């Protein structure tokens, strides 16, 4: 297509065509289809996980997560921007994309535990533990929390042997843990009362509305992911485009989700930035396709348009 010789569409002979009637009929069709599909298939609405539910279903995991937040070993603690400076974050080639956004939602992972306990604890033992923690040096705090996290350990999984107490808090041997056990069990107790979400969400404001802290804490534990994976929603299960049950999710994100399933993205530390970069490139290619020689000629080489305009071509031949 060296030169665009497309004639003006207004110069062609015309045929009767009722745009308004077409719109109305299409609207009725879509209304009926949407209404019928909604009536037959409904829409999924699985209740949100609560901290209380987590505390009751997997208390050891909540305590382990709390100790990890204090030790600075959870995912959010070592995340980098926009929450902290603990990591460089993901890069696209040499460009530190994640870092470029800056730390605009500052979150200290220890505050995910200390914040709720400081604001809402009515247990003197927990208040005392918070005071002991705050009075200690950062090195001492890290030693206590790391020792307790290691002592809890993890259960045997994927051929790896169990560590510490195998993830069972009740079997942890005595050690130099400082106030960490009291803080962790205090968070568990607060979660069981149902007050943890509010303590994390409101941040002193009567009106909540920002669930960043509570979702980060939830995502740092294993409970949320275990439930999601059980419903085939994991990242390596095409989870971004799926919904709970058999309901359709976001099938239009199939290509974005696809890249996460294949190498090199499936094994890359910078997979998110790389997949974003690739999708942006593909989107720009499609968007500016009218200006790209070769790509813009594909419809000429594969003449599907002959089906679309078959009546016109037939008349023209005649």
């Amino acid at each position, binding site marked *: 297509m060296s030169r665009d010789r497309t004639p003006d569409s207004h110069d*062609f002979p*015309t045929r009767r065509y009722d745009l308004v009637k077409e*719109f109305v009929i299409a609207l009725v069709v879509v209304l009926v289809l949407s209404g019928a599909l909604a009536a037959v298939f409904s*829409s*999924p609405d699985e209740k949100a996980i609560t901290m209380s539910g987590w505390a009751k279903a997997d208390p050891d995991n909540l305590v382990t997560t709390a100790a990890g937040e204090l030790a600075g070993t959870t995912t959010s603690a070592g995340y980098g921007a926009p929450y902290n400076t603990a990591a460089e974050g993901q890069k696209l080639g040499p460009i530190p994309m994640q870092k470029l956004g800056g730390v605009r939602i500052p979150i200290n992972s220890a505050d995910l535990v200390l914040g709720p306990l400081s604001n809402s604890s009515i247990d003197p033992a927990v208040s005392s533990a918070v005071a002991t923690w705050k009075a200690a040096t950062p090195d001492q705090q890290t030693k206590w929390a790391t020792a307790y996290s290691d002592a809890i350990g993890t259960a045997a999984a994927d051929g790896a042997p169990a560590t510490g107490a195998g993830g069972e808090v009740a079997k942890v041997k005595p050690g130099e843990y400082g106030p960490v056990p009291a803080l962790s069990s205090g968070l568990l107790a607060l979660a069981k009362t149902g007050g943890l979400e509010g303590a994390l969400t409101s941040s002193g404001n009567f009106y909540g509305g920002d669930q960043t802290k509570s979702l980060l804490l939830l995502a740092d534990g294993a409970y949320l992911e275990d439930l999601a994976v059980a419903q085939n929603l994991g990242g390596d299960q095409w989870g971004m485009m799926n919904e709970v049950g058999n309901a359709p999710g976001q*099938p239009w994100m199939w290509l974005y989700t696809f890249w996460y399933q294949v190498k090199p993205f499936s094994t890359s530390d910078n997979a998110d930035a790389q997949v974003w970069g690739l999708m942006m490139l593909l989107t720009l290619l499609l968007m500016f*396709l009218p200006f790209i020689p070769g790509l813009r000629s594909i419809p000429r080489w*594969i003449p599907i348009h002959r089906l679309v305009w078959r009546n016109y071509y037939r008349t023209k031949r005649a």
Partner: protein
Amino acid sequence: MTARTDELTSLETDDPGNWTTRLRGRIEGLVPAGQALPARQPVYVASWIYIFGVLTLTSLVVVIASGCVLALGGVQWWHVSSLGHYVNSVHLWSVELFFGFMVVHLWGKFWMAAWRGKRALTWISGMMLFGISIGTSFTGFLSQSNFSSQWIGAEGKDGINSIGAGAFFNVLNPGQMLLWHVVLLPLGVGLLTLLHIILVRRRGVVPPLDAELEG
């Protein structure tokens, strides 16, 4: 100075410095006379593929209408009301239809090389609509206030944060996501849809490929 209505046109023509007159002229010139809602189309406009553009548009109407009904009830309404849940289901399925029709429309236009004849901006605006629609639906899934929202937020944050956008677009903040979903992104979809339709009516439907040498 006063003037009768039938004298206005000539008076305004003599007043080129009038901003209102100039804006009206620009608006009137967007689409050739009679082409905004023509009762006839070129003879080659005779295929089922043309239906998918209007099906996409009408799906958008149902999406917005069902979304407005959900907004009347508030964020939690659909969790506690069977009517609210049904309206939410209509909203979901109309979105699914919207994307289905839009994808067929997009690929139909691709195989027709519909960017020909100074229609590149029509194609680009359509692609932008596809992209912004994905963002709109994504924020909708984040605004459901249920397990799906929790999981999609927890997973989605890594993608958004990886490019530095999470500092400004926090998928773990349902309040922010809901406002993007019901105000900012629909506004973008609406404006781009308007632009897309004006461009379609301005240039008309693209002629068949081998009709290029006829003019």
